[in-house]
Each structure stands twice: as structure tokens, then as C-alpha cells.
């Protein structure tokens, strides 16, 4: 954990999608910022040198959804454990949803969270404020105050708004100040209480289903409201082929919408529930192979802007239960890179863009790029190094993943935050 002033990252393959860079070269960091690429700046003397031969040097990852579980759920995870997980996963910027306890609906809570996170001096934490008080879908929060406290957008997390009029008002109000509203498209009633994709598998296993129309009905409503208000909406955790088709059309129409997908959904389908494996209990549920293929196609053609970890640490007491009683969610911060690379295959720059520059653009934060003068938030990883997903390999307090036991390629070797090596393996 050295506090290097001058850092020399030698001979790595520098991939910086925002600037169209993909070349083996040296990178020089001075005073926490990228000072030069290729040739050392005049008078540069390295305090620390990192040999990145055979490794990739990329912007630190930007994760659009990571639950840190503070305040309120410290038994599931703590800021300390999850920030360490972020470092091990190469995530230097993360957005956290407001579904803490109490929910992030007051400026004081947001300031406290930001303060505690900044004291750890690891990943940059950008909270989403609650869109409505207590996420109850009734009264708007003080969005301007919350923004001043550090919120970068407003969200209902997993709680749908039942009253469409409140959603309309929330979008109008957000539009007034130019704020982005983050929504996971889900109907408040259809699929309520559902635990698996409504389809043949759920029917066979006797699991109550969440139909695709839960997502598409919500999207139709949202797009009408966006047309009426002009508010910027970011659609979180898209899950279905039909939903993505609607997003594609909305973007073509010119609506100010972006969307992301959870990294597990890029790979898994409802068949991965197998014999009621509660590690595969997530929201939204893993859908059919056709939906999964549409997610991959949507990433490829840009319909889906970014991939996030949707990191949700759940402890044993809430996971080692019958499928329907188990808490939804999977650990993700430390799998985000490897699972994104698994999707990207040979298209390394495209894959990296989905978790760096594109994600930063969606969040509206200055991160995810390596140009001269940019903050030196950097991940150095070995795209070929293989590791096995097992509890002992994870720093997160959340040890549950549908990928437990899988061998993945792509391992973080060093994570650099503001020019300081915060993690090295």
C-alpha cells in the first residue's frame, strides 16, 4: 500500500476505449493523475515501477450498481469488506443504490456514507438518492439537497412505484434540475412475489413466475412518461429480449434513455436454477436462453450501454434456505471483470468500454478513461490468468454466486486509485 507520487507502469497493453487507445506502451503517473503515455514526461523519476509485461492496463472499472450494505445491513457486509472487494475486483468507481436501512432519502445519510467511504481511501462511491421518501412511492425526496450531498441520480432500487402519477411527478421534478432517474422496469403487480422467469422451467419446478410483460409493461409506461416530460431515464438490469427490443426502438426514436444489464444475466439462464439452487435466485430472474442471447446482442449493438456487477452480498442465514425463501442477489464486484471478459472474448476494448467509459457516461461521473490529465484510477490485469470462484477467493462478505466452483479467466494484478497502489496481488 505505497503512497507513490510518481508511478511508472511499464510495458503493459494499454486499453483506453474512450480515447481509442490499444497499444503496448508505458504509462506515467504524477500526483495522482495520468501524466503521459509512451514517453516519460521531462524530469520524471519513478518512485514505484510496476512491470505490466503481458498484462492489460485499463481504466479502473466503473460499476453502476454495488450494494455496500451500509447503513443498516452490516451483518451482511460492511463498507470495509466491500470496498476491499472492489479493490480486488479492479473497481475504482461505484454507484450504490439507496436501498439501505434507513434508505438514502436524507442529505445527512448521504454525506455520512460519502464521508465513511472517502476515509477508506479506496473506490470512489457515488450514491443514488431515493426517488421517493422511504422508497414508498408517495412523496418526492429533496432531490436538489441530495444532489448537493453527493447523489448522482435518483432511484427506487427494487421497489416499483404503484402510483403512476407519482412517477410522472418525479420525472417532471427531476427534469426541472436535469437529474437522471434510475429505474428498474417492473410492473408493480404483475409478477409480484414471483421468484423465477415465468416459463416452462418455473412451471415444472412449481416456482411462481415473473413474466416478461412485467418488464415490457413498465417500459411502455416509462417511455410515455419520458416522451411527456423529457426526463433522462436510466433503465437498470434489463432482462428480456422483448424489453430490449423496446429500448432499441426508444433510442432510435431519440428518447433520452440508457440501460444496463447485470453481469450474471449476460451468462446465466433460468436453467441454471437446476435443482432449486438458491445461488441462482436473483432479481430480475434469469430468463430464457433467447433472452440471454438478446442481452449479448444488445451489448454488441450498443442498445445496452453498460454492464454492472449488481453486487448484492447476502449472508448464509438468508441464502441457505428453500429457493423461494432465500434472499435474492449474488456477490459481483470481484467477478465483474472476469465475467465481462468472458462475454467480450476477442473484443477486449469493447468489453472494457462496457465497464469503464460507457458506464461513466451513464453515471455522468469523470472516470473510466486514461487520457493525460485524467485521474490515475487504473486496473492492471492478466486476461489469461485463471482462478476458481470459491468463498476463500473473495474479499466480499457475500460469498454466494451462481458461479461458485467455476473457473474464470481474467485476474486483477493491481488496482490503482488516484495514483496510489491500493491493491496488488
Amino acid at each position: 500500500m505505497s503512497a507513490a507520487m510518481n508511478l511508472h507502469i511499464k510495458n503493459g497493453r494499454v486499453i483506453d476505449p474512450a480515447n481509442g487507445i490499444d497499444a503496448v506502451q508505458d504509462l506515467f503517473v504524477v500526483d495522482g493523475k495520468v501524466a503521459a503515455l509512451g514517453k516519460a514526461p521531462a524530469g520524471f523519476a519513478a518512485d514505484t515501477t510496476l512491470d505490466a509485461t503481458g498484462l492489460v492496463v485499463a481504466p479502473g472499472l466503473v460499476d453502476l450498481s454495488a450494494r455496500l450494505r451500509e447503513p443498516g445491513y452490516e451483518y451482511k457486509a460492511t463498507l470495509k469488506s466491500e470496498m476491499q472487494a472492489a479493490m480486488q475486483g479492479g473497481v475504482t468507481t461505484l454507484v450504490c443504490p439507496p436501498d439501505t436501512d434507513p434508505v438514502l432519502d436524507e442529505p445527512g445519510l448521504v454525506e455520512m456514507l460519502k464521508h465513511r467511504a472517502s476515509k477508506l481511501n479506496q473506490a470512489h462511491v457515488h450514491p443514488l438518492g431515493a426517488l421517493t421518501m422511504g422508497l414508498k412511492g408517495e412523496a418526492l425526496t429533496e432531490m436538489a439537497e441530495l444532489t448537493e450531498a453527493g447523489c448522482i441520480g435518483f432511484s427506487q432500487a427494487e421497489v416499483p412505484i404503484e402510483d403512476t402519477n407519482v412517477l410522472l411527478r418525479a420525472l417532471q421534478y427531476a427534469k426541472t434540475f436535469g437529474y437522471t432517474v434510475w429505474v428498474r422496469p417492473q410492473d408493480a403487480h404483475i409478477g409480484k412475489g414471483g421468484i423465477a422467469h415465468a416459463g416452462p422451467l418455473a412451471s415444472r419446478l412449481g416456482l411462481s413466475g415473473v413474466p416478461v410483460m412485467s418488464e415490457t409493461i413498465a417500459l411502455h409506461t416509462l417511455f410515455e412518461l419520458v416522451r411527456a416530460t423529457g426526463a433522462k431515464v436510466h433503465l437498470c438490469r434489463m432482462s428480456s429480449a422483448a424489453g430490449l427490443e423496446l429500448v432499441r426502438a426508444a433510442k432510435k426514436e431519440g428518447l433520452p434513455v440508457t440501460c444496463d444489464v447485470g453481469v450474471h444475466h449476460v451468462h446465466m439462464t433460468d436453467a441454471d436454477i437446476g435443482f432449486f439452487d438458491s445461488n441462482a435466485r436473483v432479481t430480475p430472474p434469469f430468463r430464457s436462453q433467447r433472452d440471454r442471447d438478446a442481452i449479448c446482442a444488445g451489448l454488441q449493438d450498443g442498445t445496452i450501454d453498460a454492464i454492472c456487477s449488481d453486487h448484492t452480498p447476502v449472508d448464509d442465514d438468508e441464502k441457505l434456505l428453500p429457493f423461494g425463501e432465500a434472499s435474492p442477489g449474488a456477490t459481483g464486484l470481484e467477478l465483474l471483470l472476469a465475467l465481462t471478459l468472458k462475454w467480450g472474448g476477442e473484443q477486449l476494448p469493447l468489453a472494457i468500454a462496457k465497464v469503464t467509459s460507457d458506464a461513466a457516461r451513464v453515471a455522468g461521473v469523470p472516470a473510466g478513461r486514461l487520457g493525460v490529465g485524467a485521474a490515475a484510477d487504473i486496473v492492471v490485469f492478466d486476461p489469461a490468468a485463471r482462478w476458481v470462484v470459491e468463498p476463500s477467493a473473495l474479499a466480499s462478505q457475500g460469498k454466494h454466486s451462481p458461479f461458485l466452483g467455476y473457473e474464470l479467466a481474467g485476474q486483477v494484478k493491481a488496482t490503482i486509485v488516484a495514483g496510489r497502489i491500493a491493491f496488488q496481488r
Partner: protein
Amino acid sequence: MLNPQLNKNGELQHLLSIEGLPKSIVNHILDTASSFVGISDREVKKVPLMRGKSVFNLFFENSTRTRTTFEIASKRLSADVINLNIQASSASKGESLLDTIDNLSAMHADMFVVRHAQSGAPYLIAKHLIDTKQSHVHVVNAGDGRHAHPTQGLLDMYTIRHYKKDFTNLTVAIVGDILHSRVARSDIHALTTLGVPEVRAIGPHTLLPGGLEQMGVRVFTNMDEGLKGVDVIIMLRLQNERMSGALLPSAQEYFKSYGLTPERLALAKPDAIVMHPGPMNRGVEIDSAVADGAQAVILPQVTFGIAVRMAVMSILAGTQG
């Protein structure tokens, strides 16, 4: 993905679902059951096959009928039976399912008979027993959520075989609330496994789950059409809480469209049999004239149920982990 109910030799380790069971095992259970049917008529209604074994009836959901039949079956096999109504004990004190299992395992249980409101709960228990290397302990699913009720499915097959002999020329109709029915799911898997060429499901769209066709089922919403020429009718119980609301307007209207009356029964083959897993709602899904009529085999089902459960438990007890 390994089927957790079979051991590495392909023998029955747990009975969790009929889905994925080889036909040979299903037939072996039915054959074994037929050797037990006579025992109940003897003066001494016991065989010593499970002497010294402890069977724990773990009922996380209320049931009198199923629990009693398992208890009788265990006793006729000379096992010691311990009934636990978990709703009333540890679960309400906050003990987790797997903690309960560990505690009972420490009391040297040989078999757990599990009823749970959540689909898949017996799988969690079976997996835990494998993970904790307790492969000498067996699990019988006595009904999990909407998923499966394999011993009911097997006793239904026993009943059909008893009256119809051959499965490969039958048309079987399952009528009613398929959506919420674990019995329907187990019957469908059992019937298709045993080679029944036509399995029908009859009910209103609100009570039919999607994807039935992929399970090899022909779906009917008109009961008169669905009953035409069938050999076997399996009526399902309609739960009280589903009789009025968003799924159905009223019990009366349901009976009008889907109640089994003598007139409707006449649409089936003349020698068709009528089954029901019980308890029946007379006048809701079935007319008393049918329930008490010559074609009903509802009480023999109950009798066969004891023999089938004896067969399942004795086969499991004989499987080395």
C-alpha cells in the same frame, strides 16, 4: 448436474420428484407396493423391514391425511416414527431449516419425511445431507409447494395400473387447479414416464400454468371436450382461498364449468375410473353422485397409498449411501 435423488450407482437415495426417475425405478416401487397390499388385510399388519430405524415426519405445513398415511406405513414396516409439527415448534422460534435437520440428525434419524410450503425445500435438505456426508439418511418428499408430491403420484399410478393394467393405451385427464397443484405435476411426470400416450389438463386459463405443452400435456379449457373418451379422470382439489378472487369468481360458477357430474362423466369411456387425492369438496369440483358412484376409486387410492409409501420407505432404507 447430478440428479440428487439417485446415488452414484443409480439407486434411489431420496425420493424428491418423479421427474427424472427411470421407468425401472417407478415400476420397482409399484411392484414392491403390490407385495405390501396384502399385509394390511392380515391379522398382524407388520413386517420387520425397518425394525430399529427412526423415521422423522417433518411437517412444515399442515397435513393430517398424508402425515397419517406415512405414520401408518412406517409402523407397518416396524420403524419408530417421530412426528414433528415444525410450524408449532422451532421454526417459530427462528431456527433455520438446516439447523433443525442437523439437530434431528444428531438424534440419529434414518429417514426424513418432509412436507414444506416452499417448492424445492426437500432438495435443500438432501443437498445438505450430501454436503455434510450423511448419506445414510434418506429424504422422502411428502409435498413441496407447488412442485411435487411424488408418493401421491406413485399411488395414483398404482391405482391406475390396478384397474387398467396397461399404461400404453390410456387417455388420462387431470382436471382443475393445475397451476397450484403439486399432485398434477407429479402425475404428469409419472404418466409420461410410464408411457401414457395422451395426458390432458382441463381447467380455466387462470388455473393452467404456462409450458404444459412442453411437459407433454394436451390442454383443454372446455371440460366436455376434454373428457371425451378418457380412461382415467383425476380431479384436483380446489383450495378454499382460490374459490373467489382474481382467479375464479365463485365456487358455483366453477362447478358449473368444471365440476364432475354424472352427465359429464358419461362423456368418458364407460369403464373410466374417477380419482381424487382428497380431501374432496363435494359440490365444488365433484358431484356426490360421482364421488360415491361405481366408477369412483377414491377410497382404494387411500388404501394403496399405504402400500406405496411402505414400498418407497423400504426401498430407500435398503439403499446404502
